[in-house]
């Protein structure tokens, strides 16, 4: 894949935006947080929610699937699995109910199968609008089931990550999802099957330290914040100024942790090419 150079200078938006996803609907005007140009939403929508400066707005999981999958090919799986409150954590019930209302989803990830240019794959897309894409037991269960399903059906997996990490409100059970999903990825991998992880803004914490970093091929969107510890925590711990572009996709590429940065406009083509290149010939 050719290296893609991008004029956009990344900064840490997880910090700047206070960890909340912006809802993307309505016909209002919208200001690009990077170059501050204000345009009709239709302008950004027509460019796949990117700005002419290169900034990529956050996308909902279903918007993302619609951009990637062949029209009408997405078949949702495990949609009945939704979060519950295994620790009876104070306030979690209300927070989860609000997340369901805001996002229209039952959990922070959507799973299913789809075709890309006619090639079948299993697909997951995380939803930032659901508690910042945090991973609780239901999210971990859907991811594990998808990899198990794909392993059983001989399908490659393509996964879009966006997550604040493991979900605090499910405590240790959230932490265990890191091991559970890693085991599922590994068992899928042992079948000789492909897993492409696409890291989008932001991918952090326990998701970075599990299935996000376990792809055979790891792609990222330009400017995405990707890290384990939060930038604020790192700054507090080290009491040092953070280097420019710290935890940006561009920095990860430079340090050798991702394979390529792919702008949204080219993502579908890139995934299609990679799927085609992984067809077995011998």
């Amino acid at each position: 894949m050719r290296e893609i150079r991008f004029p956009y200078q990344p900064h840490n938006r997880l910090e700047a935006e206070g960890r909340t996803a912006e809802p993307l609907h309505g016909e209002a005007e919208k200001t690009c947080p990077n170059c501050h140009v204000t345009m009709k939403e239709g302008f950004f929508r027509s460019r796949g929610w990117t700005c002419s400066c290169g900034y990529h707005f956050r996308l909902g999981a279903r918007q993302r699937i619609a951009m990637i999958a062949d029209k009408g090919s997405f078949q949702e799986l495990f949609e009945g699995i939704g979060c519950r409150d295994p620790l009876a954590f104070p306030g979690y019930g209300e927070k989860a109910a609000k997340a369901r209302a805001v996002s229209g989803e039952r959990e922070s990830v959507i799973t299913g199968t789809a075709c890309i240019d006619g090639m079948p794959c299993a697909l997951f897309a995380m939803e930032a609008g659901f508690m910042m894409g945090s991973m609780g037991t239901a999210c971990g269960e859907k991811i594990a089931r998808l990899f198990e399903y794909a392993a059983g059906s001989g399908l490659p997996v393509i996964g879009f990550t966006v997550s604040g990490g493991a979900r605090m409100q499910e405590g240790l059970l959230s932490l265990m999802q890191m091991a559970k999903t890693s085991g599922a990825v590994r068992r899928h991998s042992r079948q000789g099957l492909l897993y492409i992880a696409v890291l989008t803004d932001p991918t952090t914490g326990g998701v970075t330290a599990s299935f996000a970093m376990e792809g055979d091929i790891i792609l990222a969107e330009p400017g995405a914040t990707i890290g384990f510890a939060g930038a604020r925590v790192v700054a507090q711990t080290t009491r040092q100024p953070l280097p420019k572009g710290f935890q940006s996709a561009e920095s990860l590429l430079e340090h050798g942790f991702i394979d390529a940065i792919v702008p949204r406009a080219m993502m579908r083509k890139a995934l299609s090419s990679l799927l085609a290149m992984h067809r077995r010939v011998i």
Partner: protein
Amino acid sequence: MDAYSRVRTARQTARPTAYDYISSCFSSFMELHGDRCYGDDRAIIGGIAMLDDMPVTAIGIEKGHTAAERVEHSFGSPEPEGYRKALRLMRQAAKFRRPVITFVDTAGAYCGIGAEERGQGAAIAESLMEMMELPVPAIAVLIGEGGSGGALALAVADRVWMLENAVYSVISPEGCASILYKDPAMADIAAENLRLTAADALSLGVCERVISEEGIGTDAFYGRLAAELAGEIRRLAAEDDLPGRRYKRFRAFGSGDE
């Protein structure tokens, strides 16, 4: 004792650290160093030890007791090199059919600029995948703090045991309190809600055994623990398909609502 008192107990610098367990539970220990990529992280120690007549790979997260030791061991917060050293030693354990015993005690993986740039997340993720596949018996003993992914990276084991006053949590109670309640001083409430004590972990199935701290640090205490470890390793060695059973163990945590 309330949950936050246990957190404080788990953090006491006088508590036995990984070196104390390794030097007392095993009859000999040869420490091995380095990740063969970049460095030797002193927050994680590891090597080959003798448990009775059985060679085992022993790995621990070391906090140190004195100020100088604590600095040397980065207060028990490993960098990616530490996890990669552990990974290297676990792969050797698999090659030479040695059981793996880990002693986990960390506030969490180190939060630093270099740690992030050298792939803290990727190092932990690789450790999770590799431990899940280990063809040899693995027991993790949480001896103090079990801080999130940094602890789990060495605890994807067939059996997870916790000391009576050890804690295991997805996030520190202070971190949880500052995010949820915007007030780190509410850590005691967060500690309660997070269900992070050994008894909680036992009831959630996250750990199989809680080790009594009666006589902690004495020869009798280590002798008792060593005997339990040796017995359990022998039981596990007789089981077939350890990776499959281990996956089932972790697969069972939480299925969500359907």
